[in-house]
C-alpha cells in the first residue's frame, strides 16, 4: 500500500490478557520501528528492525513485550499479561533505513487495558 497500516485501530482488553498489534510497513522499507505514546507523553521508542540484523530491543519496557518481523515485512507487537499502564497509542513506522529518507508513521493502535 501507499502508507504504513496498523490493525486494529482500537483495542480494549482486560488486565492480564495478551494482545497482538499488527503493522504493515511501506513496501521496500527495510527499517521498521515501534513507538508508543501514553496520554500526555512524548513518543517512547520500543523496538527497531533493520533488514536482517538483530533487532534493537533496548526500548522494550519489560519482558512482557516482544515483537517479530516476518519475511522482512509485516511486524507483530505482542504484549503478554497486559497491565493498565500499558494503555497507550502504539505507533509503527517504517523507513528506507540506511538509504535515508523520512520515517513514515502509521495511524497507530489505541490500546486500552481495563
Amino acid at each position, binding site marked *: 500500500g501507499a502508507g*504504513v497500516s496498523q490493525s486494529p485501530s482500537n483495542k480494549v482488553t482486560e488486565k492480564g490478557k495478551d494482545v497482538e498489534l499488527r503493522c504493515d510497513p511501506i513496501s521496500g522499507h527495510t*527499517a521498521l*520501528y515501534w*513507538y508508543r505514546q501514553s496520554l500526555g*507523553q*512524548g*513518543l*517512547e*521508542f520500543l523496538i*527497531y528492525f*533493520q533488514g536482517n540484523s538483530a533487532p*534493537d530491543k533496548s*526500548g522494550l519496557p519489560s519482558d512482557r513485550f516482544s515483537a517479530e518481523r516476518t519475511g522482512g515485512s509485516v511486524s507483530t507487537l505482542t504484549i503478554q499479561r497486559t497491565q493498565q499502564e500499558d494503555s497507550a497509542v502504539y*505507533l509503527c*513506522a517504517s523507513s528506507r*533505513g*540506511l538509504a*535515508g529518507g*523520512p*520515517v*513514515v*508513521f*502509521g*495511524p*497507530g493502535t489505541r490500546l486500552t487495558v481495563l
Partner: protein
Amino acid sequence: DQQVKQNSPSLSVQEGRISILNCDYTNSMFDYFLWYKKYPAEGPTFLISISSIKDKNEDGRFTVFLNKSAKHLSLHIVPSQPGDSAVYFCAAGRLGQNFVFGPGTRLSVLP
C-alpha cells in the same frame, strides 16, 4: 536521561507571525534530524529533515536550522497558519539506527 529535549511544552503564536520550535540533543553521534507534526488521534506526519552535513533546510513555509556545535535545532514556520496548530516532535538519530523523539511542543496558532 532524555537524549532529545524540547523544553517548551507549549507555544502560542498569532496567525501570520513566525513560529519557532526548539530542540536540543545530547548525543554528538546523531547525524540525522527530523520534525514531525501530530494532530489528535492521528499518527505523526513527517515535515522536514536535515542531515548533519547541512545547517539549513527549507521546504515552503518550513525551515529547519541545525547548530551542531550547540547540539541544537529549530523549526521555523513562516507565516504561521491556524492549520499549523498541532504537537510538533523533534527526532534525532543515525541512519541505520533507531530515532529518539523529544516530548513534543504543542503549537497553537491564534486567528
